[in-house]
């Protein structure tokens, strides 16, 4: 009998929400880095950070998901590959790397306070629910459609 497909996810906390991103698009977990503000753009853009000599645009997960930062947050940046481009997602804390059988993840459900369009699925980590984010939908209103600056 074939094995049940497995879903690999990186689990992190943003405010009060436990969220996940598919491990396939997570390139790196970075500590929180000082960001340079970009004037005039959405407040969901935390700014630019220097990652070993390259610039990375970082989006603030708390603003995107309307969550309060917690005082005990260590802060981390999850480096994601979105449509061939790399962006950082600032989160409160990275919690886990999880392998769960795909059948144990349910299709998206209405969650109080979370835009259902941003939820790809919901699952359980122990007895704690987590949201598998639709990262492209989450970033779509913010990231540029007109390519890189020189």
């Amino acid at each position, binding site marked *: 009998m074939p094995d049940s497909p497995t879903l690999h996810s990186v689990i992190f906390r943003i405010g009060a929400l436990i969220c996940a991103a598919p491990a396939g698009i997570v390139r790196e977990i970075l500590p929180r880095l*000082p960001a*340079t503000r970009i*004037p*005039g*753009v959405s407040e969901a853009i935390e700014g*630019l950070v220097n990652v070993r000599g390259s*610039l990375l*645009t970082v989006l603030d997960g708390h603003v995107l998901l309307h969550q309060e930062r917690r005082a005990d947050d260590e802060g981390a940046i999850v480096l994601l590959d979105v449509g061939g481009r790399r962006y950082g997602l600032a989160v409160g804390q990275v919690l886990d790397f999880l392998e769960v059988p795909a059948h144990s993840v349910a299709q998206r459900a209405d969650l109080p306070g979370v835009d259902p369009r941003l939820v790809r699925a919901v699952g359980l980590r122990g007895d704690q629910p987590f949201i598998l984010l639709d990262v492209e939908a989450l970033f779509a*209103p913010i990231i540029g459609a007109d390519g*890189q600056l020189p």
Partner: protein
Amino acid sequence: MDVSKYAALFLAESREHVSACNQLLLEWERDPGAVEPVGGLFRSIHTIKGMAATMGFTGVADLSHRTENLLDALRHGRAAPRPETFQLLFRAVDALGRAIEGAGTGSEPPADEVLGSEIDTAAGATVGDQRPGAIAPSANQTRPVQVTIRSGALMRGARASLVLRRAEAMGRVTALRPPAAQLEREDFDGRFSFRLESEASDDEVAAALCTAGDVEAIRFEQTSPAEAAIGIRGRQIRVDLGRLDALMKQVGELVVAKNRLIVLAAAAQDPLFEELSDRIARLVSGMQGEVIAARMAPVGEVFDRFPRLLRDVARDLGKRIRFDMEGEEIELDRSILDEIGEPLLHLIRNAADHGIETPERRTASGKPAEGRILLSASRERNSVALRVSDDGRGIDRAAILAKARREEMADASVETLTDDLLLRVLARPGFSTAEAVSGVSGRGVGVDAVMTRVRALGGTLDVKSEVGRGTTFTIRVPLTLAIVRALLAVAGNERYAVPLAYVAETVEFDPGAVTSVRSREALLVRDRVIPTVHLRHLVAGAAGPAPPRRPTIILEVGDRRTALVVDALMGQQDIVVEPFDAPRGMPPFVGGATILADGAPALILDAAALL
């Protein structure tokens, strides 16, 4: 011999010769009695033929040979240089260009027999005319000569010099490789080549050259591209641009590391560390200069294609246009040069189509029947200005304003179009005043396409126009894209980089010199009223109160100026423009980003957007 690996070299050298052919044909067409252009054309076509034959590109070699026959007929008066002959030669050069591109990229196009026959007819070709494969020089023809000095011969340089003296006694020697100075230093492997224009036969030439002594071999063959490359080693080599790009990127990272090292060394207060840091900084600056210099190329490389293009456009439009170029020797970074051709092409086509009037109309308005377009390049501080000027009808501001109002681009309160406003209207996507698409321009994709491309290069576009007198478009681009010298300006606790290319001077903000122009704040600097922009307001969100004394950066693009009031200046730094994914809604005054000496990212301000 596997020659396929020399295809890139063949392509590069043949392109240069095709470009030269176009220039020479234009020169000859202007003065059909001139002798020099014919000789030059002959040499270029002959060189292409030789290289193509070596590479086995029979189509290119055949077409070159037929063209050479026509040139020979013209040179010896068997055919007359009539307008239709020039047109035929232009077509032949175009066809050669296409055949070379195809051959060099692995798909040599089939021969255009119609064109070939036309060339043969014009040349009055005779039966049994020899085709390439056996390139036999005719009387007083230029032939390639390759000489090999015997290995182990003493004073090989002196031997080479003797051979050359013998050759010069028989005719004209050109295209010596390696150059004479290198031969004199004996910095060659015993082989050298040149072109000899002489009436003597091959046997006579060989016999004469051998009298110099220690000559092992004389060959009358085109030097293969590979051999040519060997011959010029140590002087000039062709380098793949990708390698220079990679080198530039490495140097860019080195510059960032150097900046960081300087900060660390200063903080450490260790004399040895500081001395080492200074030395590394000097070495990196030197290397940076060398790499930038290696990437620089004269704008003439882009300009060269325009005379031919304009000739064809003028023919299509039934206009008489004289095209002049100035400042072709001015250099720009290769990456900018590669991008600037298209915008210039747009402007030149626009000038020919919309600017220059028909000969009848020009004569009726008291102008010479022949219009003039001038393409020029000049250095301005750390940027280069490229101008396309015409002496045509000028832009009808009233018509543009009327159309702009109809299309709700300008409101009714605007009475006249200043140059700035005119440019903004012209650069609106899709804006065109042409009543009909002419096939040359007028599709409404001209000025906005130029503006977009120029802005992407960190450059600016200006227009000046006078009805009846003509129009000048000026493109200003930085000398190089990758590494720029910048002034660091502060607003609150944020730092911004301002490229020095557009900084005229810095002054202190004097509240007593504040005035107002059209209800906008301006600063009086040495009797000149300059509108102000406060960096704090611009980047809304800078923390802390503004300091009482504020430096002001006077930005200048062409004759436009803006005073940028900042909280503080932190000196100059070489900055490397770093790519990043720009978020939606990024304001136009942000021209890019960089990483400063302390490792923090900083935004680069686009001077043009502030003016």
